[in-house]
């Protein structure tokens, strides 16, 4: 194996069965909430790439000299569909997706090239109820995956935006301050705010921003820092949502968190991330992005979230449901019709039944059984009773 192959393979999903199991669980949940799964091609016209992804796509020339990009994300593809072929469909539009996006590693950020995601987009709905639907779905998704120890950190981009807009900082100055906030570098922040001569109330509010995380008490702390109408509006919106969530007995709790300042240009309202102990990375991201559909020709609100399958699957090891319920042995060609009939009967009852087309020896079969979580192995000609082997369900 050459070094290029090794580098590429080291970025691949650690456990396909666990990833598939996670996707299956989420698909079931999304369907229950009436989100229709949309499938997209891996290759997309390069000129349709959104500004946030510019420079991060893997591009290939097409047969006519044009340029194609490996899809860098799903959200913009759903937005494009909503603004074009989905234009006449009544709103709100509920769409889900499941697959791998491809992006060049971000310096100092996400280093993955292949990003396996399952997510939902709610397009054409603004307001607290739509936000509540997505946050609830995120919470139920984490619980359905068995990640009961997770937390969802919920914030609103409008608060930091209001503080920065009211300051005398230039755009470059805002970027520097946000980068320092994103690194939690308080000392450098204080020096920067002083050197930029930011007025005292705004400087104090920005310095205390990193403490605004916790229970609903955070809202009072945040209101004590500013009287800016835009900041108070953002807090009001977020508080209303948090109150709804508190009354809804979510399976995975939400934490108020105004400390996240990255991706300000992407989100336009609430934003959230899901964390699991020992994961090291967010396993879920979402929020409101009302400017998402506009570049495709129709201005409409949108909110959604994406589960990070590669980051979730290590936590599902050993607990994933079976990929195959029954494996039916077929020792000879003559027994095929009988075995097929049995498989059909099982499938009609909702089982996932596979036929052993390799006529594997028993030691090889055991490995296969282990890899796919097969619950029963069925031999033909056993007078209708299913013989059980190996591990039970």
């Amino acid at each position: 194996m050459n070094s290029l192959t090794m580098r590429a393979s080291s970025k691949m999903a650690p456990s396909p069965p666990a990833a598939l199991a996670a996707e299956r669980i989420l698909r079931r949940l999304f369907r229950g909430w009436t989100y229709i799964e949309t499938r997209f091609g891996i290759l997309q016209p390069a000129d349709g790439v959104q500004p946030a992804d510019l420079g991060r796509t893997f591009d290939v020339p097409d047969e006519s000299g044009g340029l194609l990009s490996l899809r860098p994300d799903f959200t913009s593809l759903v937005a494009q569909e909503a603004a074009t072929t989905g234009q006449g469909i009544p709103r709100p539009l509920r769409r889900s997706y499941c697959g791998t996006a491809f992006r060049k590693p971000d310096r100092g950020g996400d280093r993955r090239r292949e990003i396996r995601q399952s997510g939902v987009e709610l397009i054409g709905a603004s307001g607290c109820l739509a936000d509540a639907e997505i946050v609830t779905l995120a919470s139920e998704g984490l619980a359905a995956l068995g990640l009961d120890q997770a937390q969802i950190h919920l914030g609103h981009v409008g608060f930091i935006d209001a503080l920065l807009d009211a300051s005398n900082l230039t755009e470059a100055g805002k970027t520097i301050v946000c980068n320092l906030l994103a690194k939690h570098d308080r000392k450098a922040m204080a020096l920067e705010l002083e050197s930029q001569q930011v007025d005292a109330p705004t400087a104090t509010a920005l310095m205390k921003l990193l403490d605004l995380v916790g229970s609903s008490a955070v809202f009072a702390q945040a209101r004590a820092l500013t009287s800016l109408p835009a900041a108070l509006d953002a807090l009001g919106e977020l508080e209303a949502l948090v109150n709804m969530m508190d009354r809804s007995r979510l399976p995975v709790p939400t934490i108020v968190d105004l400390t996240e300042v990255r991706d300000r240009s992407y989100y336009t309202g609430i934003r959230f991330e899901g964390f699991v102990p020992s994961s090291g990375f967010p396993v879920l991201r979402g929020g409101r992005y009302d400017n998402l559909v506009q570049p495709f020709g129709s201005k409409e609100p949108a909110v959604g979230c994406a589960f990070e399958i590669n980051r979730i699957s290590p936590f599902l090891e050993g607990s994933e449901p079976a990929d195959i319920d029954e494996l039916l042995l077929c020792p000879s060609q003559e027994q095929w019709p009988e075995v097929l009939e049995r498989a059909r009967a099982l499938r009609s009852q909702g089982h996932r039944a596979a036929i052993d087309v390799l006529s594997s020896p028993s030691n090889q079969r055991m490995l296969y059984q282990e890899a796919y979580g097969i619950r029963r192995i069925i031999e033909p000609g056993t007078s209708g009773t299913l013989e059980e082997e190996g591990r039970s369900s």
Partner: protein
Amino acid sequence: MKPLTIALSKGRLLAPALSLFEKIGLIALPDRGRQLVFDSTDGRCQFLLVKPVDVPTYVEQGAADIGIVGGDVLLESDSDVLCPLMLGYGACRIVVAAPRGDAITASGRPRRIATKYPRIAERFFSEQRIPAAMIRLGGSVELAPSMGLSDWIVDLVETGRTLVENGLEPIAEITTTQAQLIVNRASQKLRREGIGLIIEQLSKELPC
């Protein structure tokens, strides 16, 4: 609850780091012999001693919640971690050094740069619009120009004596660095109180 995991860089930054944690009562005996993993006195934390270049990886990936690492290593790693505290020791400069009499210039042929920090160097020369090719070395970088391997070097300098002894002198300073405390982003969300307490205790022990 699982103890907070703190990754410390072996080498020149280890003794001051152990001394800091001793001052806040988390380590009783700074001399751990050859032990690479040990618990704090109160059992709240677990310490790992790892190679300096590995500290950002341990922290970024969440195998450690907190780390102490040189700013040079952190810059070179490009890791996505929080940097809430500069620790005030291990101060150094990252410089471009050249044989005596040479000067930094964007004109002429592309320069060959020997360095342990190819990312930092590449970024610097790219920003300065100086054509340059990086040659990655693991150590003794100062030898490279005299052996004809490179034109210039980019290296970490504490006093500058090694440069002088090898006929080199700094021609540009890229940045200054010092030891830093770094924190995993997810740990900061999930274990905020424990991490905050350590940062607060350490801050009190640092020179203003």
